[in-house]
């Protein structure tokens, strides 16, 4: 790289007049899409329009109907508001412009460099061989403007996310293909890999699944209770305090539907491709070998329909926030069990859930799990660790032996009295936790020791980070 820069510096003298060269950077550094400042300040714009319209209605009401405007807008007239709002908008646009002016990115050899910051300059280098996933996110406004945000998830700290907002859509696709090709160890000019669709979630099924969730049932039960109380007492006022909570529940259900609308999963040589979203769309690419752990959930309410859900842990998608996980860590929001398991086997090659069944927990686990102790199963297969639990709703959790970050054996006071212990395989953060709960304490120790060996062997034999290159 330095050689390249040196040569360029030597050529500057020969450049024709009128051509400027950014001496600090490299000519390979690019700017974001020119619409970025406008799109970044659109929040201010929307807030302003919203506020102005309420003010306007108040004033019109006041003038036409002679209502007294009791609101906060009291003494201020429309021009004053317009000036305030205009000032805010100009400030936002100016900041947006500066942000755009000072943000540059470019691929330099093995890293993606992103320079940002107006006052405090920051230069971030993203090591491409550590790339865990690449997402193209398009909020509604970005879709209207024909642009997209590119998000890179890198292994490491919590906020390792490196977003590039905004790029033109074709350029976002091209950059994603280039990043994935370089991350795989292929030539940068490799075209976007072809893909083969695996699953498409029908809208009807998603709607059914969203409605058959615990929160909807809560809503229903509450509604019935309210209806009964109202008919008995004839008073409706006491419902009011509960309305915000109900609203929240309803919104969660709607959000789950909107986020996962038109969910498709496709397979390509550079990884798993997931697309979804009704208003904001998200197109995820998870390269091979980046799935840390997976969980198949059989919710009780979906059982008659035979539907299940699949969640993933991918490093970098990590979040303690359920809303965020709903956006990033879902492999299949809803689907028939056979489709889901088929998909799981494709995502985790070598998995054989139909083969050896994991071992059940001992009978005395009943003391701690009076209900569902029979369903506590766990065990190691050739390349995967598998654990199951749950009575009404069931979970099946799988993790490749090559993926635990650490392994733990824990025993609480109640467990000690029953000579039980739990084995945990610690995954990168995400919705899936892997544990063999309430095993016989000696069997648990044997399981831990076996897992230590399996982890070591699998790690040593693991595919290289640049998955397209042959192992060294």
């Amino acid at each position, binding site marked *: 790289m330095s050689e390249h820069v040196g040569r360029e510096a030597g050529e500057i003298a020969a450049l024709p007049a009128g051509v400027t060269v950014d001496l600090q950077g490299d000519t390979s550094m690019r700017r974001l899409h020119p619409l970025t400042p406008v799109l970044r300040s659109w929040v201010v714009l929307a807030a302003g329009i919203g506020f102005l319209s309420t003010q306007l209605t108040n004033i019109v009401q006041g003038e036409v109907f002679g209502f007294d405007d009791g609101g906060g807008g009291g003494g201020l007239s429309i021009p004053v508001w317009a000036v305030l709002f205009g000032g805010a908008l100009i400030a936002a646009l100016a900041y947006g412009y500066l942000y755009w002016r000072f943000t540059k990115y470019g691929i330099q050899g093995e890293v993606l460099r992103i320079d940002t910051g107006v006052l405090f300059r920051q230069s971030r280098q993203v090591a491409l*061989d*550590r790339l*865990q996933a690449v997402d193209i996110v398009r909020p509604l406004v970005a879709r209207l403007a024909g642009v997209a945000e590119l998000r890179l998830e890198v*292994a*490491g700290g919590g906020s390792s996310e490196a977003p590039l907002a905004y790029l033109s859509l074709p350029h976002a696709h091209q950059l994603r293909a280039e990043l994935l090709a370089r991350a795989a160890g292929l030539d940068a000019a490799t075209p976007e890999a072809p893909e083969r669709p695996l699953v498409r979630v029908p809208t009807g099924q998603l709607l059914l699944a969203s409605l058959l969730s615990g929160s909807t049932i809560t809503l229903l039960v509450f509604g019935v209770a309210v209806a009964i109380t109202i008919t008995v007492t004839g008073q409706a006022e006491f419902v009011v305090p509960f309305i915000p909570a109900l609203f929240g529940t309803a919104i969660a259900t709607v959000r789950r539907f909107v986020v996962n609308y038109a969910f498709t999963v496709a397979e390509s040589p550079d990884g798993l491709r997931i697309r979804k979203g009704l208003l904001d769309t998200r197109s995820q690419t998870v390269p091979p070998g*980046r799935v*840390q752990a997976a969980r198949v959930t059989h919710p009780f309410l979906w059982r008659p329909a035979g539907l299940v859900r699949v969640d993933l842990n991918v*490093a970098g998608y*990590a979040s303690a926030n359920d809303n965020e996980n709903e956006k990033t860590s879902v492999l299949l929001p809803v689907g028939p069990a056979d489709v889901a398991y088929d998909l799981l086997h494709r995502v985790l090659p070598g998995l054989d859930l139909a083969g050896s069944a994991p071992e059940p927990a001992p009978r005395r686990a009943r003391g701690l799990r009076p209900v569902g102790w029979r369903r506590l199963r766990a065990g190691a297969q050739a390349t995967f660790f598998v654990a199951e639990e749950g009575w009404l709703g069931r979970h099946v959790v799988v993790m490749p032996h090559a*993926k*635990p*970050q*650490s*392994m*733990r*054996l*824990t*025993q*609480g*006071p109640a467990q*000690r009295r029953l000579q039980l212990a739990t084995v*945990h395989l*610690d*995954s*990168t*953060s995400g919705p899936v*936790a892997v544990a063999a709960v309430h095993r016989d304490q000696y069997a648990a120790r044997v399981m*831990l020791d076996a897992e*230590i060996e399996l*982890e*070591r062997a699998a*790690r040593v034999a*693991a595919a*290289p*980070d640049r998955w397209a290159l042959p192992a060294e």
Partner: protein
Amino acid sequence: MSPALRTVRLITLGATLAVVAIIGLAVGFLVSWRVGVVLLAVAVLGFAWGAVLIGRQVASWGFDIGSDALTIRHGVTFRELVVVPYARIQYVDVQAGPLIRKFGLAGVQLHTASAATDAAIPGLPAAEAAGLRDQLARLGETRSVGL
């Protein structure tokens, strides 16, 4: 673990319970000795029980620098055995608060890509802690793999 860790923890416990005892005395003089005595008893008994527990807790800590992984064991009521392969170590911290530093101690904390990894060694002589950190960082570096 260094026996000095026990002293440090006893001081911390003592300081906390001393506050309870002082409140007990104040309540006794100002309000009622019935409540005050109860508070004093809580402080004294709490210290005795805590001292026993701290002794066992500190004694329960142990670690082993294996060929491929660090193993840490700790806990009396809630027992835990943690195995962290060196290849998974992202970084190692050495921490020491003011009190623990007075006794020449320091704690070592390991971080992996998993937030669930609970791998810490709380009370080592400061020089030993720094040495352990360097050793672990070296072991992690030579074996480092991707996730």
